[in-house]
């Protein structure tokens, strides 16, 4: 498995595609692959979504994806 950590100023659900797969600041486990990441709730973040390639991570060093508050 691969590990992802999504950062945002507020606590939000992290959507992979359209499915909630975890929360901001928490570890999310996914298979290696290409994913489109976004957040639930008010659309006060940028970018609106991010396409990532998840590979070569570990729970100690997950891939970090950041959304900025706008």
């Amino acid at each position, binding site marked *: *498995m691969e*590990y992802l*950590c999504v950062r945002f100023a507020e606590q939000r659900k992290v959507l*992979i*595609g*359209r*499915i*909630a*797969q*975890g*929360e901001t600041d*928490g*570890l*999310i*486990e*996914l*298979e*290696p*692959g*290409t*994913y*489109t990441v976004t957040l639930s709730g008010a659309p006060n973040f940028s970018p609106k979504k991010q*396409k990532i*390639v998840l*590979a070569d991570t*570990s*729970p*100690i060093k*997950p891939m970090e994806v950041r959304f900025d508050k706008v």
Partner: protein
Amino acid sequence: MTKSRSLRIFFKGSLFLIGLVLIGCAQYTKNARLAEYAPEEGYRFNRLASGTNTDSLFVVLTFSGGGTRAAALSYGVLKALSETEITWKGEKKRLLDEVDLISTISGGSFTGAYYALFGGRIFSDFEARFLKRDIEKELRRLLYNPVTLLRLASPYFDRIDLAAEFYHRTVFDRKTFGDLVVHRRPFLVVNATNMFLGERFEFTQDQFDLLGSDLSSYPIARAVAASSAFPILLSPITLNNHPQPPDYERPDWIEDALEDYNRNRRRYLRARNFLIYADKDDHPYIHLLDGGLADNIGLRAVIDSMRDDAREGGILQLTNLKKIEKLVVIVVNAKTAPPENIDKKKRAPGIADVAMKTATVAMDNYSFETVELIKELKARREQIERTVRDCQALLNDRCAVAPTVPALKEIKYHIVEVAFEAIPDSKEQEEFLSLPTNFSLKPSVVDRVIEKGGALLHQSSAFNDFMEEIRSAGAE
């Protein structure tokens, strides 16, 4: 022309016409077209009320194929779970009431579907209504009926459709998947095999969305029949691959996964198969065979749920949302291994032996590897949890101000196997391993298999470890 001759001609003509009408009318039950795309509706895990069934203790049962033998063994396990009391999160209950998901194949599908539909009623009437009936004899009797023979002459009505009608009437009380939606967990996943793709096909609304079809009006008996449509003996079940409703949106993950050919072949193939279902012009029909061809123990549905990011209510999602504390997977495998003497003969085995081996060797090897795979997934996850724990401990030990390693929610896994191979007495083991695969076991044999299901569960060290853990948690 005499009056009696005219009457004879009229009578024969009428019979001929009735025959033609019967042949013309004989048609398999079609799956309905989906009027509108409703991802929140239909038979999906998230739609079922959980009641007092917690997510924190997530119990999965898989029931293998193997005719009445498999149905009885899985029934024995259900019975034992109904007699096993636990205390979880301060609440006393039966372990059976914590079962969240049942994935079934062939013979095991009868037990799983009956329990999902009728709940506790299974313990009062399933033995008489299915396990102890000579289903094969009853089907044969039906087959020799002249009306049936005429209906079977239709190219759109085959032996499997006859069996499905029979199960619909006499076992499943004409229930459909719409009747399951109003129920609580467990969520039932009846597995068949898509003949074209050679991959697992499950009777859930998530799968039927791909066919532009509404599962709710589909008879449960037809799903069970598809799951047990053993090749050659029974014909495949056919489904219509309808055009998608106008408001249907293709899931986002497809485009992403199609880029993963070299990164994650499994995910790429999921997406590619999705596109095959989406190609309605080239694939207007789906033909389903026995679920055992794709996975004879029903465990692949569970492994897929542990990996699939596109599944609402899947085990991966529940893990990521930190809902699961204990994951218990009970694999009920009615595999047999009749005694053989092919290695004792100088002469090369005959065509019957070769045909039997051709049909079963790959299936048995795959079942074995599937059980080993889920054990490996468990071991890998435990190792990662250990690594994170050890890393944090090392940092705490060596650094004055230790940074915090990202927290990984720890999950206790228990993989329990119930199989005749675990019977300690070799003579008794041989007896059970020699049981036939059919739908007509003697009632006394059925009783023994049921009893053995419970006994094998209770003698499993993995099950006893889990029970010990539950008792300790309850005592705290």
